[in-house]
């Protein structure tokens, strides 16, 4: 048998020798011929960038579109072989040749990957490059998505796009330097859904780097993503932004049954068009230096004291912990004494009030008492139940978590045992150290509206391509561990705020719809008070919950409540009479360009 094995092994060696001779033939003897072929008849892959997804409101009205823009790139390998190309390009682009070469040869002189040299070139440059197509070897003109905003709404939420950074390249394996990606807001969060898929063209290039043909059967066309539906209602969003104009603050409205954000506005805002192409550094500096901080998304990135809107949380805690009953009454003398005197905002006192009236009339003294009984940690427990202190998980990047001042936090801040029990009194009326975003406020309001359903707020609804709906957001809801009897009392109090003659926002009520809400006025040592309002409607079957926060403006009842009432009325009209939507067809948008 060993003879046969040796024969077989010998045969294998023979086969290998055959391969080796062939390799020698190709790589040593015919090397020049193949090297020529490899350089002369090489195939260049050119990317085709798909248009980004069109962002629409919940009814399909387009908010963000694309418009064509062209960028110019050059292949370093070709430029190195034919320096005249760079010279000509430098004069066309009015840049110095050294500068151009520096950009071009970042990744070596033999690189075949096109390097982007100019973006959004004007038509004259485009035409003269096209005309000299064969002289300028290795030059590619590429379509780039550029955003166009027919309606400049919700810039903070939509976000902007920009050139990919080094750290982003690592997150997106199919992207490379020069590509455009979402940088903030929805554009960033849903980059994968909005970007679509790149297409590829295989061009045959001759020894001079000129394009002589194309492998058409290998062409992969780019695939755009489709229509990206938001939960926003454009009408409501526009109204919210109008109502916020010339003020500082934020408005959020959501559907409390599923967490769909109907409107989310932050003021002051910026013009999204500034970011649609290449952002000029002067514009960037201006936005950075603006004292109004227009780039800040106040609805998700700013923490405010909750003021009296927090009282439902305090009352819920007291009811759940058995510290107070529905039938209880309290006599407000205008202050509460614990070590020192804590004043009610109504200095001459509310007199005898019931539990529901304490919300309707926003009696501070009663809540000082509850705060005293509860202490900071029980208050913190119920704040957590209502979703404060942690990000809501909305699909907009960089949301902050707000602040819950529990004893651990206070120990850290002031030292163990160095803070007074009295802090709980201020926390109980929303004036302590606790901070919440307007988004957390509206989520809290939604829980009250639905008697305990907590929804994760979101702005993305679904993605529709030519094949139909290909991706959607699945709402996440949970029930909070609070008894329905408790909610009955809280909701009754909120109803009276707008509908009882003693209610703090009685004069702002709607005559058409049954609404409920709560005012809040946050004392601000640095100037005018912040005005707050949360509300929901209709009372018996809530379809919308709203939170309004206005900085340095005055009372919540006079400034924030009217905005909330207008928004709720508008939305209830829209859903009651859906034909109002059809009244403004999409065609009108197209007329603008």
């Amino acid at each position, binding site marked *: *048998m*060993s003879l*046969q*094995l*040796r*024969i*077989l*092994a010998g045969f*294998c*060696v023979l*086969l*290998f020798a*055959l*391969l*080796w001779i*062939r*390799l*020698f033939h*190709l*790589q*040593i003897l*015919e*090397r020049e*011929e*193949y*090297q020529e*072929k*490899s*350089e002369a*008849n*090489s*195939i*260049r*892959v050119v990317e085709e960038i798909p248009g980004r997804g069109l962002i629409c409101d919940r009814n399909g009205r387009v908010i963000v579109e694309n418009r064509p823009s062209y960028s110019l790139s050059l292949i370093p*390998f070709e430029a190195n072989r034919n320096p005249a190309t760079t010279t000509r390009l430098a004069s066309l682009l009015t840049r110095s040749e050294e500068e151009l070469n520096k950009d071009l040869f970042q990744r070596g002189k*033999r690189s*075949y*990957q096109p390097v982007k040299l100019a973006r959004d070139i004007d038509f004259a440059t485009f035409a003269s490059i096209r005309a000299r197509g064969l002289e300028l070897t290795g030059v590619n003109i590429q379509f780039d998505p550029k955003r166009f905003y027919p309606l400049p709404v919700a810039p903070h939420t939509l976000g902007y796009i920009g050139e990919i950074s*080094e750290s982003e*390249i*690592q997150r997106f*394996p199919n992207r*490379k*330097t020069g590509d455009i990606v979402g940088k903030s807001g929805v554009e960033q969060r849903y980059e994968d859904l909005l970007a679509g898929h790149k297409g590829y063209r*295989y061009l045959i290039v001759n020894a001079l780097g000129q394009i002589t043909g194309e*492998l058409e*059967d*290998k062409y992969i066309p780019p695939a755009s993503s489709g229509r990206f539906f938001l939960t926003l209602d454009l009408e409501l969003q526009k109204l919210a932004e109008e109502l916020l104009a010339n003020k500082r603050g934020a408005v959020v409205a959501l559907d409390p049954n599923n967490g769909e954000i109907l409107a989310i506005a932050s003021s002051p805002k910026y013009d999204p068009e500034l970011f649609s192409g290449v952002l000029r550094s002067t514009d960037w500096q201006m936005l950075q230096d603006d004292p109004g901080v227009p780039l800040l998304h106040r609805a998700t990135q700013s923490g405010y004291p909750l003021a009296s809107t927090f009282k439902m949380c305090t009352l819920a805690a007291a009811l759940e912990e058995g510290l107070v009953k529905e039938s209880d009454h309290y006599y407000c003398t205008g202050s509460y004494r614990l070590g020192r005197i804590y004043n009610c905002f109504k200095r001459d006192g509310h007199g005898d009030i019931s539990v529901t009236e304490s919300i309707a009339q926003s009696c501070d003294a009663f809540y000082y008492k509850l705060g005293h009984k509860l202490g900071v940690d029980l208050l913190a427990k119920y704040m957590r139940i209502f979703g404060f202190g942690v990000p809501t998980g909305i699909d907009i990047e960089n949301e902050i978590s707000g602040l819950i001042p529990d004893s651990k936090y206070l120990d850290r801040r002031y030292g163990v045992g160095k803070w007074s029990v009295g802090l709980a009194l201020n926390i109980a009326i929303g004036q302590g150290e606790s901070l919440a975003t307007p988004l957390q406020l509206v989520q809290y309001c939604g829980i009250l509206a639905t008697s305990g359903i907590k929804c994760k707020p979101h702005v993305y609804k679904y993605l529709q391509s030519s094949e139909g709906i290909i991706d959607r957001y699945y709402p996440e809801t949970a029930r909070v561990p609070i008894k329905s009897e408790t909610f009955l009392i809280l909701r009754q109090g909120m109803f009276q705020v707008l509908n009882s003659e003693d209610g703090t926002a009685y004069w702002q009520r709607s005559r058409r719809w049954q609404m409920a809400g709560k005012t809040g006025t946050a004392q601000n040592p640095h100037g005018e008070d912040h005005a707050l309002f949360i509300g929901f409607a209709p009372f018996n079957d809530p379809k919308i919950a709203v939170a309004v926060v206005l900085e340095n403006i005055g009372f919540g009842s006079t400034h924030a409540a009217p905005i909330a009432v207008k928004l709720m009325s508008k939305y209830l009209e829209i859903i009651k009479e859906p034909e109002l939507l059809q009244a403004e067809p999409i065609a009108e948008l197209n007329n603008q360009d």
Partner: protein
Amino acid sequence: MKFLDIKNLDPWLIAVTFLLIGFGFVVLWAATVTDSGEMSLLLQRQIIWSIVGTIILILTASLSPRVHYALAYIFYIIGCLLLLSVFFLSDPAKGAARWIDLGFLNVQPSEPAKIAFILAFARLASDKKFNPVKLTHLLRALALTAVPLGLVLVQPDLGTSMVFAALGLSLLIVAGTPLAYLIVLVSPLFAALASLDTVLMVAYLILLMIVTWRLRFRFSMIFILVILNLGISLGTPKLWDQLKPYQKSRLVSFLQPEADPRGSGYQVIQSKVAIGSGGLTGKGLTQGSQTQLKFLPEQHTDFIFSVVGEELGFIGASFAMLLFMILILRGFRAALIAKGKYSAMVCAGVSSMLAFHVFINVGMTVGLMPVTGLPLPLLSYGGSFLWTVMLSLGLVIGIQRRWREYTP
């Protein structure tokens, strides 16, 4: 179980195996590197698969040959059933039925079937009563080969059926089949190839007559053989019409790649250009224009050797070939020193299998063999084939380290 005993191990066999896997990582890295110089997802996966493969190798190497000797026929039956199952389980929309989708992994059952076939053949031929000179015994061995070969051929997978045929022939040689029988077996293949040209056909038939006469075949035998070969030569063109269009185009583009530069010949031309332009020292890792422009189809799987040729040149390609050669010869050495016939045949079978894979794959990239979609052992990207190769190497190592013992 000798699990951690390493004193009898062949250091060459192990070192070369892992050198090739490491070499594969480097080439795969260069072929799939992203623009920012990041490691690609493919490479990360291949590394994970190699780790799993190493575990498989260690486990099989610790297995006594007695175990797989006892189970050889069962493996064979399972292997054939798996080959049969692709006809029911795979998606006919994708053309050839070769894969079973397990959800997390696509498995090509022809890979483990090759090993099962080697084991079953080795068991059959190592039987003391087996006499290769006896026609009935020989037919039994042929039937054993014909079943998996036939199943693979109708999938249709030309490349793998070529491996089965070559493997069957090698094992027949090792089993001691007389040269005369082998000629009778192989002659139809040559007859089919000779049918391309009338002069060639006549010359071949005359050659066949001379050889068989010199080997003292009986006159009647020579007559039957020549008539048979003539029939095959004449029948081949008819059979040609039965082939699938893609098989035809592959064969045509193999014989004449320049005829259709954008179709099937495209791959071969570009691969030859890539390898040829690599020259002596290559263009350097990640610097190959053919590779980096990504027009070479399947450059990380079937055409990985083109990347070696282009970026590492003749030196790199020769280095890879040398490693393969050492691997295969160490396998044959294990067969030579093994005490049992079964063990020897398993080692020889695995070595032959690897040799044919390398020959067919590298032959394809340099234009010596048709494009068949056979991967290159240990270098091509892909989990199921890597595991098959490491499992079969585990078998060889398991036999080799017990060379002092009496194994079946």
